[in-house]
């Protein structure tokens, strides 16, 4: 796997979580900074999914292909699902859902790394 890509995703997820936490502390809907960070995070996850699947096809090492692909693709779905579930609750609790989504993305990165390194 690409270590640089993983680092980018983790940094973006941390940023998203921090921006969302600031919105939660202010008791407001997700601001443009939070929504923007979440969108950029999703783009990074999409790039990672494509790169990861290509690398999975090329590697000679023993990598559990099914869980690896499932985590790669599942991760891309986290931001949009978190956004929809957050947007239908107009309070700080909706914004807190985005924090959960960002932390989930970090957890997925850790799992992807575990599976890739075996």
């Amino acid at each position, binding site marked *: 796997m690409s270590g640089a890509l993983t680092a980018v995703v983790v940094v973006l997820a941390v940023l998203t979580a921090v921006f969302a936490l600031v919105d939660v502390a202010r008791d407001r809907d997700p601001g443009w900074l939070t929504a923007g960070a979440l969108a950029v995070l999703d783009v990074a996850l999409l790039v990672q999914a494509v790169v990861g699947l290509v690398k999975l096809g090329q590697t000679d090492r023993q990598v559990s292909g099914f869980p690896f692909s*499932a985590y790669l693709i599942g991760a891309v779905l986290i931001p949009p699902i978190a956004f929809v579930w957050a947007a239908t*609750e107009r309070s700080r*609790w909706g914004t807190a*859902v985005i924090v*959960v989504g960002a932390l*989930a993305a970090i957890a997925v990165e850790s799992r992807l790394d575990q599976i890739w390194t075996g």
Partner: protein
Amino acid sequence: MTSEQVAGTLRSGPGRVLVAVYALFAVAATGRSAYQLSVQASEAPVPYTLSLVAALIYIAATVALVRGGPTWRRVAWSACGTELVGVLVVGTVSVLVDFPDQTVWSGYGSGYGFVPLVLPMFGLAWLWRTRTVGVDPSHG
């Protein structure tokens, strides 16, 4: 309050976050345990089966919290209660006996940042806090 509002109570406010975490664990635990059981069941059948049981409870809790209403509230109580007992029992057993592989609940959910231990507590607390809003006398 209309019945629609009563039914929606469990998934509103803090419940929105609760549902998000439960749904996350439902998907993650179901996928992982189903995969482990189908590919490597012989390695550790008991832990993987336990993980699948945990996964089914997460699904039940998620659905119950989203649906709301008296009946689903009872399901949510059972699911969160079973989950708390499960994580405490399996957590304790996993500390005493060396489990051949990690489950969602081994080490009191230490492999998942102890979220499996804290989640049912928040779930039960949330059900307790919203109890007067519900129309279920048996848990009122």
